[in-house]
Every structure is written in C-alpha cells, then in structure tokens.
C-alpha cells in the first residue's frame, strides 16, 4: 500500500515553488485590499444603520399635535430608508454562502463589465483579482459593520452629551470624539478579520485568482500529486495566520492594559 506522504513527491513539486511564492503574495495582497474595502464599507453601513433619517416622521403626530398611540402610520413614521437598506444588505450577505456571492459578482456583475486584462507584477491577472477583492470586500463589510456598530455603541453616551453641549455638531462629534475612541476599541477585531480573510480568500481560486490554493491546483494538474502540495499550502496558511493572531492578541493585551485605572 502507498504511504500517505511520499517525501520524494516534495522533490517532484519543488520546481513549482515559484507558484507558491506568487500565491502567497496574491493571498496577502487580496486580504489587505479586502479588509480595506470592508472597513470603508462597514463604516458607511454602520453610520447608515445608526442614522436617524425618517422622511415620514410627521405622520406620528395627529391633527391636534399629539403623538399617535399606534397603527400603520406610527410604523411608517419610524421608517428609515438608509437604515433599512444597510440592514437588508448586512442580513443578505451574512445569510448566503460566500461562494455564491463570489460567483454572482464574477459571472454576474463583472460578466457585463469588461475589465482591462493587464497583469500586476507581471503575473497577477487584474480581471480575476479585482472581482475577487470586490466580492470578498463586500462580504467582509457586512461582518465588520456589526463589529463597528457595537464599537460605536460601546462609547459612553456622556461623551456625545459633553461634545454636543460644547456646541460640536453631530458630525464633529462622530469625527473627533466617537470614532477615534470606537476605532481604537475595535482595532483588534479588525485585525482578526484580516486573519479570517486570509483563510477565506482560498475560495477565490474558483474564479481563477492565483492565490496559494490555485498554486496547489496547478501543481496537481501538472504532476498528479495532491497531498504534498496541500500540505505545503497548509504550512503557508498556518505560518501566515498563527503568528498574526498571536501578535494581535499581544497588542490587545497591551492596549487594554493602558485603559486600566
């Protein structure tokens, strides 16, 4: 019987090392862009969800100027279109498989848009890489939105009251008082999302992004060896994720230490 791993097979796949090096770079770049897009998207979504725009606000008051007790008009008066859109987006993205989302973005959206087919660093195909980043970023934005909302809501209401009583507008309050504190609190969570994306990005090989997983596939196709390239990929992913999460945990401890009285 054949043994599970043949050391000689590692020798056979050694000529393809360049593919893994390129795959590593793609995976890291993909994850960084994804978190960047996800972060901006999440911030917008979180602010939309917490906004207080109610176009039918006036319906809550009856002809005599008193607040209505209940009924459909009260329900309508509470309707916030921005918050509704953001909530719908977050719930749909979180309740469907990321693979389906990637296929819809790649075949659906970018099937209609012709992307330029140049190559970054001479080997990253832009028309594969870009849809991958967009799809993962949109997915990550939905998850980060909830983290960000929690981070903003965790800031004491007294901070807003102090800022507003000094004459700062709601926008200034967000920019100078709430967001700097909230972002510091959720920085570890955002860094953790980076680690999650490194692992999740493996799925983008299905649309031809040349990441680590795609290197495995290429080696398999050329040599008919499967287990050994997978083990190489495993080692690379582990070496990326494990130290990064340990580093985050270390900084998290350091930062919370500074908060203690």
């Amino acid at each position: 019987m054949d043994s599970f791993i043949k050391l000689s097979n590692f020798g056979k796949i050694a000529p393809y090392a360049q593919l893994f090096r390129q795959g590593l770079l793609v995976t890291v770049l993909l994850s960084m862009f994804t978190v960047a897009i996800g972060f901006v998207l999440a911030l917008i979504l979180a602010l939309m969800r917490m906004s207080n725009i109610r176009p039918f606000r006036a319906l809550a008051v009856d002809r005599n100027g008193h607040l209505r007790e209940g009924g459909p008009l009260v329900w309508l008066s509470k309707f916030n279109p921005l918050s509704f859109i953001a909530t719908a987006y977050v719930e749909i993205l979180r309740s469907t498989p990321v693979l389906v989302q990637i296929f819809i973005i790649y075949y659906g959206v970018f099937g209609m848009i012709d992307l330029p087919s140049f190559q970054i660093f001479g080997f990253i195909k832009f028309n594969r890489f870009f849809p991958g980043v967009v799809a993962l970023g949109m997915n990550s934005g939905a998850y980060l939105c909830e983290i960000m909302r929690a981070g903003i809501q965790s800031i004491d209401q007294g901070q807003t009251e102090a800022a507003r009583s000094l004459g700062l507008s709601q926008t200034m309050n967000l920019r100078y008082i709430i967001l700097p504190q909230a972002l510091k609190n959720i920085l570890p969570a955002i860094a953790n999302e980076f680690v999650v994306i490194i692992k999740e990005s493996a799925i983008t090989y299905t649309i031809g992004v040349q990441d680590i997983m795609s290197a495995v596939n290429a080696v398999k196709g050329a040599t008919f060896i499967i287990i050994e390239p997978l083990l190489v990929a495993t080692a690379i992913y582990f070496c990326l994720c494990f130290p990064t999460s340990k580093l985050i945990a270390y900084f998290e401890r350091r930062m919370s230490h500074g908060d203690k009285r």
Partner: protein
Amino acid sequence: MATSDSLIQVRNLKKHYHRGAIKALDGVTADINKGDVMVVIGPSGSGKSTFLRSLNLLEEPTDGEIIFNGVDITKKKYVDASGKKVKLDIDSLRQKMGMVFQHFNLFPHMTILDNMTLAPMKVKGVSKEEAEKKALELLDRVGLADRANAYPIQLSGGQKQRVAIVRALAMEPDVMLFDEPTSALDPEMVGEVLDVMKELAKEGMTMVVVTHEMGFAREVGNRVLFMADGKLLVDGTPEEIFENPTNPRLQEFLSKVL
C-alpha cells in the same frame, strides 16, 4: 412679559415618558436672570436633572417653552427679527450654555489641553495659539496648568471636574449648567470643586446648579428651587428655603438631608 435681565424663561415645561404615564417634568415655570446662582434641590427622581438637561435640549421637552436670548428653543423653527422663518441652530445655542456633568465626561483620548481647545477651535474657529493660551490661563486659574499635557485618566476626580468646568468656560458661555457636579467625587475632593464654583459665582457668572450640597445652596445660591415629583414646589431665597420653610414636602426633605 419677563424682566429685561432675564436670560432664560422657562414656561410650563413638561417632559413625559411612555405617552404621559411618567411625568418627569410636570409644568415647570421659572425665570433665570443674569447673574443668578440658582440652586435646584429635591429628592432623587424629582426631575431636577431633567429640568437642567432640558435647558440645553439634551432632553427634548414634550411641551412648554424655553426662551433663551428671545427665542423659543423648543421649536425647531422660529421667526427672526426680519420676519423670516429660520431653522433653530441648536449647536450655536449650546455654545452659549456651558454644561458640567456628574461623571465629568472628559474625552479620554485627548490631553487636557486638547479637551479644552477642541470646541473653541472647531466650533468658533479660534486659532490654535489663541485657544491654547486661553486654555492655559483657565487651567492656571484652577491650579492645573502643569497638567495640561496629561490625559484625563491620570487625574483625580476633583481635578477632572475642575478641568470639565474650565473646558466649558473656554467657550465663554452666557450661563453654566451644573448637573450634580460633586456627586461622583470622593468626599475630600468635593471642596476643591465647590471652591471653583464659588469663585465663578463671585465673578458674576449665571449658574444653574443641581446639587445635594445644601451648604453650597445656602452659602452661594441667591435663589433655591425645590422640586418634587416633576413639579417646582418652592422658588425662593436661601433664607426662605432653609430658615423658615413652609411647604410640608420641603420640610420633610430638609429634615432628611440636614
């Protein structure tokens, strides 16, 4: 209507919760005159904090009027001098009312100096040099100039509250609102904060102070408001309140706290 030196006129102010089931404020009427040191006392849940917070609209009143600088600030729009309907600018209004909170509410991610210069610079457009000069002068007055570059976390409670007071003063407000400024302090730090407030009163600042410090009310206040169950029961001088109280609720309250 009111006398010319009245700064804020409160008319039949109401704040209801749960569709009127809870009446935090049940028709309060009072005039705050320039130079007044108005101390609001009363049992907890009497609505005194709600009253104070309504003055700069941190609480939106359910009904009634608050006339500040000739404008009813409870309405979203008002008619200006030229007869035009304009939107109420709540931010420019709040600049003129400094507020000091029970829990200080300093911004923990900024130094003391930045805490004090943020609003003057961003809201009033004062230059950085000017804002810092003013901030340091104010800090010097409360004996904290040497802590300008410290963070709030490095300060004691009394120091934090003194900073909070001068932070509000840096906006040069017309009136200062104090919401139980000494309630969260260790007993030995109460004095230093009250001293700053006394100093402020002496300089003629208009102040509305919600407090449990009866000594302060008696000594510094020129008017004392006694509230219970959302109603203003007694509005009088410290002598009327403390020496010969006639209202039975007030007598009962004073017998518990004095």
